[in-house]
């Protein structure tokens, strides 16, 4: 693998191949685009996180004393919109997916590199529009912007926010398009479907949802914008329009959207658990097919968000039953991951700690989904903090933990540096503790009856102590998120240089140098082995210690 050295004797790779803003802003290299996304989504994560902090600070006391009710309403709206559309939905696919999908299948780039760059620009344009919207007044409808409130009863910047989401949605669609075509058409010789890493299966399923679901929210946004600007009346009851039609259209996308947010994270967990147990994932085909099953069933359950909205009893029965069937593939995955650890050779590196955290938190979050799918219970807990706790367990406890685990696992490959393992383990622990302290009390608050989106709970001062616990946890969680930011940045300058395969992990991406060259592989790989060939790879070698990995 002889490659000429760069000016300082450093091997040429995708980072040092060219310098200067144009080489980044006009790149078509999927790895550079992944880093562009990394910067942008991290930025929006902190914006969304800042709003969360303000929300939790306000909720320390029952009265609406930190901010006015209108401001609070904007805070939770913007927190939701930014976190969902500008952080969670892109995060793993746009950063780790972009970086790794071509490498894992032995390709030189994605199928459509220029469309990939366009994706990022669309995301940025949407992001700038959203920022502008927030800075000039924001939106106060909740991220769900139900009609007729959003079409006829609020003066905030619905159309602008809607268009920002619309543009970002296209970014999501094009990313999905790229992944599906790449996975179908650009696998290296010998990389059959049954040899694909589960990360790829997960992203394939995610991309199907992105492609088929996102256009529906796009058209919903168009209709809401049209109704607001042209006074059309499609959702206006005074004209015979039906506000429930909006909810159906909205949730037809927004439910599958939550699977966009969790499936990639599940793919990461598969990779990490396999590597740090030194074994093939137990039940590979079942885990792969369960990703597809989740994607398909995920499209059939949207009205479980509407059990008390005014749908018929019979519709509610159907959606409740279907919601239980979508829980089965998720359970199957958890069992398979746990079984993978049986008779493994377990290492406790930071990525594995994040995977443990994922297992615990996703299990709790998923099980509380069973509560919500039970019609009789949902009547009581829907629109309360029980739901808020449920989805944060999945999205933060699940998706974000997986994302952080993946960032740690592939950081050496991405940056060519090792992160400080001690600090990483500490951060994982702080995140786990902070997370549970923040969100577990919210299950109790929800069953007690505290509704969501309440700026002021001075009529129910008995809710205060649980809110105080929650805010305390949020502070700890915040620290846990800051730490990786700091030490990842630190490592880019001061971290030990990483070997090609510090974890002795399976996967084509580990057969390239760290960081990889622009075209990934000097020669197209020919795959003759099964995925997760840890039997051949053996253990993480002791000289990894000398390399300073652990």
């Amino acid at each position, binding site marked *: 693998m002889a490659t000429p050295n760069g000016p300082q004797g450093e091997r040429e790779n995708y980072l040092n191949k060219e310098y200067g803003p144009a080489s980044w802003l006009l790149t078509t290299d999927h790895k550079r685009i992944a880093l562009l996304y990394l910067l942008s989504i991290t930025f929006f994560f902190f914006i969304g996180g800042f709003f969360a902090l303000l929300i939790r600070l306000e909720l320390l006391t029952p009265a609406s004393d930190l901010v006015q*009710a*209108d401001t609070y*309403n904007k805070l939770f709206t913007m927190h939701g919109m930014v976190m969902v559309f500008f952080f969670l939905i892109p995060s793993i696919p746009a950063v780790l997916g972009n970086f790794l999908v071509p490498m894992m299948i032995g390709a030189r780039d994605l199928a459509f590199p220029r469309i990939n760059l366009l994706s990022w620009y669309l995301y940025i344009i949407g992001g700038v529009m959203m920022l502008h919207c927030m800075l000039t007044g924001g939106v*106060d*409808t*909740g991220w769900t912007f*139900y009609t*007729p*409130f959003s079409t006829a*009863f609020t003066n905030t910047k619905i159309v602008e926010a809607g268009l920002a989401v619309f543009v970002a949605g296209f970014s999501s669609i094009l990313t999905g398009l790229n992944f599906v075509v790449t996975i179908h058409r650009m696998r290296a010789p010998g990389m059959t479907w049954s040899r694909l890493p589960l990360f790829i299966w997960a992203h394939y399923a995610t991309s199907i949802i992105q492609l088929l679901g996102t256009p529906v929210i796009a058209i919903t946004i168009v209709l809401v914008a049209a109704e607001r600007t042209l006074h059309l009346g499609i959702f206006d*009851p005074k004209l*015979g329009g039906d506000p429930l039609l909006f909810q159906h259209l909205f949730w037809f996308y927004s439910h599958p959207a939550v699977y966009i947010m969790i499936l990639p994270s599940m793919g990461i967990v598969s990779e990490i658990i396999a590597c740090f147990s*030194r*074994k093939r994932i137990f039940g590979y085909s*079942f885990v792969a097919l369960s990703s597809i099953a989740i994607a398909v069933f995920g499209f059939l359950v949207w009205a479980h968000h509407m*059990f*008390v*909205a*005014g*749908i018929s009893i019979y519709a*509610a*029965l159907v959606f*409740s039953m279907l919601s*239980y069937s979508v829980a*089965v593939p998720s359970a199957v995955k958890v069992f398979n991951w*746990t079984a993978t650890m*049986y*008779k*493994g*050779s377990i*290492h406790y590196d930071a990525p594995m700690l994040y995977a443990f955290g994922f297992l*615990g938190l996703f*299990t*709790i979050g998923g099980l*509380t989904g*069973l509560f919500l*799918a*039970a*019609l009789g*219970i949902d*009547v*009581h807990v*829907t*629109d*309360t903090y029980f739901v808020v706790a449920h989805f944060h367990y999945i999205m933060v406890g699940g998706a974000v933990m997986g994302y952080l685990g993946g960032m740690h696992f592939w950081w050496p490959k991405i940056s060519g540096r090792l992160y400080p393992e001690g600090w990483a383990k500490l951060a994982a622990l702080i995140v786990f503790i902070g997370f549970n302290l923040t969100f577990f009390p919210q299950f109790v608050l929800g069953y007690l*009856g505290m*509704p*969501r989106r*309440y700026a*002021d709970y001075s009529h*129910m001062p*008995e809710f*205060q*102590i649980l809110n*105080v616990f929650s805010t305390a946890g949020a502070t700890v969680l915040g620290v846990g998120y800051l730490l990786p930011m700091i030490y990842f940045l630190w490592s880019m300058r001061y971290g030990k240089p990483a070997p090609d395969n510090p974890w002795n992990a399976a996967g084509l991406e580990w057969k390239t140098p760290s960081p990889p060259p622009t075209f990934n592989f000097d020669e197209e790989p020919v795959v003759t082995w099964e995925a997760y060939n*840890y*039997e051949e790879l*053996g*253990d*993480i070698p002791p000289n990894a210690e000398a390399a300073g990995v652990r």
Partner: protein
Amino acid sequence: MFNNFPLWPERASTIAGNVDALFIFLLIVAGMMTLLIFVCVIFFAARFRHRAGVPAEQIDGSTPLELTWSVIPMGVFMVIFVWGAVVYFKERTPPRDATEVYIVAKQWMWKLEHAEGQREINELHVPVGRDVKLIMTSQDVIHSFYIPAFRIKQDVLPGRYTVEWFRATKPGTYHLFCAEYCGTQHSGMVGSIVVMEPAQYEAWMSGGQTGPLSATGEKIFSELGCATCHRSDTQGRGPNLQGVFGKPVLLEDGRTVFADENYIRESILDPGAKIVNGYKPVMSTFQGLVSEEQLNALVAYVKSLSTAKPGEPSTNAGASAAPPQAKGSQVN
């Protein structure tokens, strides 16, 4: 802050016990499953911690195991589903003779009117042990009428009626919350449900000035000229409304619809939508000419015309013989 630290809401309705029972069952199931996973993960992580010279054992999988842990959870889920559905059915099926209260939600208050006539704002007085049915609509955006202690909640929509019901079991004052975000003062749209002993409730009721809601409705019915066409004989240009409510109605396009609260409401606001068989579409709309409260009164009046007195006909002259009426007056 520490004085009042509840971890479980009060139970004050007949359905609350059912909901709590299912919830506790789920807590047990979820708790056991969480414990199982946690124990396995921690145990495996410790027991199979990497030891020099001890390689991992490559186990591909086990189809019987996969089937087991797919089928058994699915079975448990179906049990939960059925149980939840049963409770839900109870929650959404108001008893036949429930006392009715009409509710109009608006940003950011609840306006309530008992069928007997009492009006309340943000408070609902009810006697313990009586079935109470809430017939609700919104003047503006979507709200939601939520009583945690009763474990019931129902979104309140503009343009139609939605219904929920309860039977309170314990005197006391309980929180009422709006549970669907509705704007600036969403968190201020709270109130109380005051459950009283029957005797106290009678006393409270007799303090009210206005007559029953249906009497108000009768007044509006005549003031707006409805009686001109909707006469109580067969000579009117509109159907006789005696006995219409709660029964099927044959329409001129051949469909049969059930005359519930939403049907009456629609007939006033959008009369062209459903023309009764044998009549001409000549009724003009009253959209914009009646307020939500007046609508509620009119609906109450029409309903009162269906409480058939002995000897009087209870079928509408314009409606043909129809299949047996469906149970309850469900408004969906």
